[in-house]
């Protein structure tokens, strides 16, 4: 499932998304989480539920995005 964008502002670099993602789509790049394997996302919502910075949103059709606003 394609990812639209990443956003450095809300990400707290806590690594939780990288730890919980069942499809292992996240990697840390320059200290922030990025979605590297977006086609593997199945929209399980775990990253959104567990992200303490509320930086991630799963939108309809299983796209997962990082929110833009700081």
């Amino acid at each position: 499932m394609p990812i639209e964008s990443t956003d450095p502002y809300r990400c707290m670099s806590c690594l939780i998304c990288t730890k919980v993602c069942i499809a292992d789509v996240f990697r840390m790049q320059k200290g922030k989480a990025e979605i590297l394997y977006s086609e593997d996302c199945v929209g399980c919502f775990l990253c959104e539920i567990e992200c303490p910075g509320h930086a991630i949103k799963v939108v309809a059709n299983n796209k997962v995005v990082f929110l833009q606003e700081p």
Partner: protein
Amino acid sequence: MVREETISNDVLVVGGGIAGLLAAIRATELGSNVTLVSKGVTSRSGQCVMAASTFLGYEPSEDLMTWVKEAREISDYLDDPEIIENVIYQSHNLRNRMAEWGVKWHIENGNLVRKSGLGMKKMRNVFFQGGLQMLSVLRGEAARRGVKIIDRLMVSELITSDGCYPTNGTIIGAIGINVRNGTFYRLKAKAVVMAAGDWGIKNAFLPPDNTGDGQAASFRAGVVLRNFDQLGFTLAPAVNLTLAGLHPFFGHGAVLVNRLGERFMEKYSPELLERSPRAVLARAAALEIKAGRGPIYLDATQLNEQDLSRLKFLLPRVFLTFDRANIDIARDRVEYSLSNYGSGPCGGVRIRKDSSTSLSGLYVGGGTSDRSYAGVPGLTGASVTGYLAGESAAYYAKEVGLKEWNESLVTDLQNKMYKPLQCDNGLESNKILEDIRNIVNNQIGVIKNEDRLKKGAAKLKELRCDYVPRMMARDFHELKNVWEVSNIVQMAEIMATTSLIRKDTRYFNYREEYPYRDDENEFKWILTQSNGEGMKIWTENIPYEGGR
């Protein structure tokens, strides 16, 4: 160069779902030292977290044999009578044990909520408060008891004592890699519990990890499979085919309608309607769509607020998805589709009542098994068979020592595993996945016929022999994908080939040429085993009477 690690244990558990975790807990209880490895994240990965929070509600005051008979009928008698009886009977004890450890069962007004589920007349389901809560508790319990848990470790092959595939020896461990940094693992063990979940084709009902790795590795090692002719399908929201919920939705009274607004289950299964067994629902939906009366819809608009609120609590992911897609289930019918469920309902490594297999040293529980408990919710059967796999593995491990490994065999397997990384202009594994999905959904499909099955089997063999060896990986994540696709193809080919043998319609095997259940001539299990080059297939009569 990648790092290498060697870990030795009494019991190695492959898979971090309910079967694997209960196996690990039980084995440590009996004195084994245990490592559990998961390709994903233990307590997040696998079917349990995505499941519909449903568990069998058997109590000792119920009539066990009535429940056994009902479950056997749901599975069209493919269930092993000894195993289904044991699963139902033991499920109560396991429910209690899990409650003691902290798993939350859904209680209202001081009592467990009990509802009928698919195919159930006398049987009842109870509910737990989400797979995330359940598995987090079990992971904690396992860790507390000293189970070493290693995540992001994909087991690629079992190690056989004679170095042969298929083996005439025993299983003495496994090899695998870290799916991020490629660290190579030698996992030496006296006994292996393979609880790696089901075979699925990704982007369908089963989670993306369930690619049949455990079944395929066990098959290559020479284990006997049972009922791998049963291709599962379920119904899921069209907006996301991975969403569960049929047991609770229909248990609470939601209905299915076709494009014309007709409650079509009245035609196909007038007694149980939407609470028919999953196989009956899938078949009915497929026939409606084939007849041009699709799409089909789930209608929950008649449910009251309390029911909807309970469903939202039990199925958070489903309701989150509906919310994002602007679907209001209280007001609108929701479009549902057929979603491939792979080996989910039935089919896999043949197990005995103690979760042992045809290979010494290999024990199997949960989705990797032949699911000889198909008549009850899968998580229930996974829990009991996993628990028993750990128990049996622990007892076996007391009797045997750790075996020496043949290092030149390991080097060969290691080189083979990393080879796609050296393949510069190879094939993308995701592209082949589309072809495989097409073959599995359309050539095998809900409605099978001989011509399509033969073509499908031939095409899958071609993919396995010509395309799969040419897949490439640019990093270890892609390497994981390559081996997942390789396992998907291998098991799909077994599914297509084995389907040709069953000449009646039984459970998920719906044959156009034989659209009825034939208990006189086809009351059989189908067994499959590797013979090196391909597979041998034979049948075994199902016992009419079973259990006690």
